[in-house]
């Protein structure tokens, strides 16, 4: 029978080492040096574990804890976002906790929210897997005094104080016109290849493009057509071909959709129109790298996930400090990003990141592996 006890003992030892090991790995991922310090202190504190309300919450000298939950692990876009969040939190002297579930589901995120409530964090920023399903959990967090904000993918207005939006529609629209104008030398015919005719995002952007075009400096640029590729690859290809046929003098195409811009890039490459018809828009670096490297599309835009995270970090800090409550018109200075304003968004409020991020030949190699 000793053997059996031996086996049990063996398992116990293995479990111990295993847990100790993961404890360590968790720290190093959780937030570099600050969190390590925090966790390594805890064994001594655990002697008085039952009185756990005491430390972190009430300010004092303790570091504030800011958590971010992304949709799921292994998503490079999300990891860049968390990287930016961590950077901001380190700048404001807080401790960043980065979390993401293994499955992109709301129930996994609920569990993580519970864990964070238990840890008495000061703030939770979340990129939601479901806008409504997290409401009970996030309301519980807010009732516990935790400041909740969403970023990238919003939760409903009742579940958050404020949302951090990737990009300001006005900036997207205006920047795209400025970009294409520079590419075609300020004169000639241009066309827009959009998603569906009802797509809210794209339509808002196109409105802003038209407003920008009213500026007298674009008097020689003529928008000849808005085509709709419905975000389908083959339809976008045939719409691009139709544009090229109907408007032989076409100088530039703006595709404010990742599907459209990739399809247009393919058509322009196949027809050997590089340099004759310019292309820009909103695209995924991974899909657009070959066209940017070949020069078919000199540059394009999308938001920078690092900045989305970075801004969220400062917003979280503002909410915790009380300088921000999520009301329209409030202002926050977000580190290197400068001042941002809270604006209305449906029932709730949001903060816009602002300028879309420019991808060109100089940085595309770095980004194409990211997302």
């Amino acid at each position, binding site marked *: 029978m000793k053997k*059996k006890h031996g*086996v049990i003992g063996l398992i116990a030892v293995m479990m111990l080492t295993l847990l100790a090991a993961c404890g360590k790995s968790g720290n190093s*991922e959780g937030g570099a040096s600050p969190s390590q310090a925090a966790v390594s202190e805890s064994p001594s504190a655990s002697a008085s574990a039952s009185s756990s309300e005491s430390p972190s919450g009430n300010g004092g000298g303790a570091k504030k804890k800011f958590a971010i939950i992304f949709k799921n692990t292994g998503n490079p876009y999300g990891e860049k976002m968390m990287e930016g969040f961590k950077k901001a939190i380190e700048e404001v002297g807080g401790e960043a906790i980065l979390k993401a*579930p293994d499955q992109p589901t709301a129930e996994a995120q609920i569990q993580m929210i519970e864990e964070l409530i238990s840890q008495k964090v000061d703030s939770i920023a979340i990129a939601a897997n*479901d806008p*409504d399903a997290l409401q009970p959990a996030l309301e519980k967090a807010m009732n516990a005094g935790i400041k909740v904000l969403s970023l990238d993918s919003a939760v409903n207005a009742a579940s958050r104080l404020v949302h951090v939006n990737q990009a300001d529609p006005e900036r997207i629209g205006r920047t795209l016109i400025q970009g294409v104008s520079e590419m075609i030398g300020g004169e000639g015919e241009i066309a827009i290849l959009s998603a569906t005719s009802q797509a809210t995002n794209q339509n808002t952007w196109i409105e802003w493009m038209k407003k920008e075009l009213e500026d007298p400096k674009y008097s020689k640029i003529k928008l000849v057509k808005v085509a709709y590729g419905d975000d389908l690859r083959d339809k976008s290809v045939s719409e691009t071909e139709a544009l090229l046929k109907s408007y032989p003098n076409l100088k530039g195409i703006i595709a404010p959709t990742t599907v459209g811009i990739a399809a247009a890039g393919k058509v322009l490459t196949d027809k050997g129109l590089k340099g004759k018809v310019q292309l820009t828009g909103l695209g995924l670096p991974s899909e657009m790298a070959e066209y940017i490297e070949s020069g078919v599309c000199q540059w394009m835009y999308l938001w920078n996930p690092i900045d989305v995270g970075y801004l969220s970090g400062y917003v979280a800090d503002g909410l915790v400090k009380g300088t921000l409550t999520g009301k329209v018109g409030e202002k926050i200075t977000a580190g290197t990003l400068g001042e941002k304003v809270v604006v209305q968004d449906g029932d709730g409020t949001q903060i816009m990141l602002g300028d879309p991020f420019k991808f060109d030949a100089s940085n595309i190699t770095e980004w194409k592996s990211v997302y």
Partner: protein
Amino acid sequence: MEPRVIPNKQEWSWRGFVLQWEWLLVVLILIVFALNASLSEFFLDYGNLRDATMGFLDKAFIVLPMVFIILMGDIDISVASIVALSSVTMADLYSHGMPMEWAMMVCLAVGTACGWINGMLIVKFKELSSVIVTLATMIIYRGIAYILLEDQAAGKFPKWFKFLGWDYVGNIPFILLVFAVFAVAFGWLLHKTAFGRKVYAIGNNATASRYSGVEVDRIKVVVFTLAGFMSAVTALFLTARMGSSRPNIATGYELEVIAMVVLGGVSTAGGKGRMIGAILAVFLIGYLRYGLGLINVSAQSLLIILGLLLIFAVAIPRLKLLRSPVRKA
């Protein structure tokens, strides 16, 4: 030759008592508690532990009938899809104007029906193993859920519905009370009734049981139907917790449930294991996950740890057999 007598009840001895698999689980739970408490100051807190329990108990309802299924040497991998289908049906009906009470009844009915279909298919097509049958129904049930909601979420349930997933009776989570009632009922069914003995008999040798007059088919259908019903109970609590339902709800639950049952000492070969073991395993995995979550271990490392734990669970009985082959004598 002396006929071998298999005692109805094993004789009680200190040795047998101490060397039960379940004690290992108790020891592991204690280790998990001790470690978690030393790693995070927030672990040993009644409120936190109580709320963590609310978080992981939803799938525990399926663990109870799954013990029966695995004891019979079968498996049911469609349970998570049943959760999804019954939850989505309930949400869809409610959003189309059906009163919530009725929608909940339909949810239970849908789950029960799904389980019954599983059972009937397994009994009617004996050449197909239960893995294949439930693999097929797993895809079908989840598929219907997607047809109903088309990757949308439905919800906006009445306020009182949230009670199931988030509230307490006194200071005890409602879900824990319900689970306790079901656990006692299933434990009684397995260990104190003829039905339970027959389940063990089928697991040890289905053919011999059939020739001995055990109504194997009927019992299998009943057990699979129970699994369907309990999946619907999980669906109720999970949906209440989420506040809305979508077709990808409960993804991966079937594997977690099976892992808990196996860790609880129920042999996948059938015929061996007890209810209490599986219930202990639910709490072991639940608190382990929660504790690791408190110290913010990444999701990948967490999966690896749970996987290792499962391998230990499957490997240890083998170690025992290898080292003491005299056991049977």
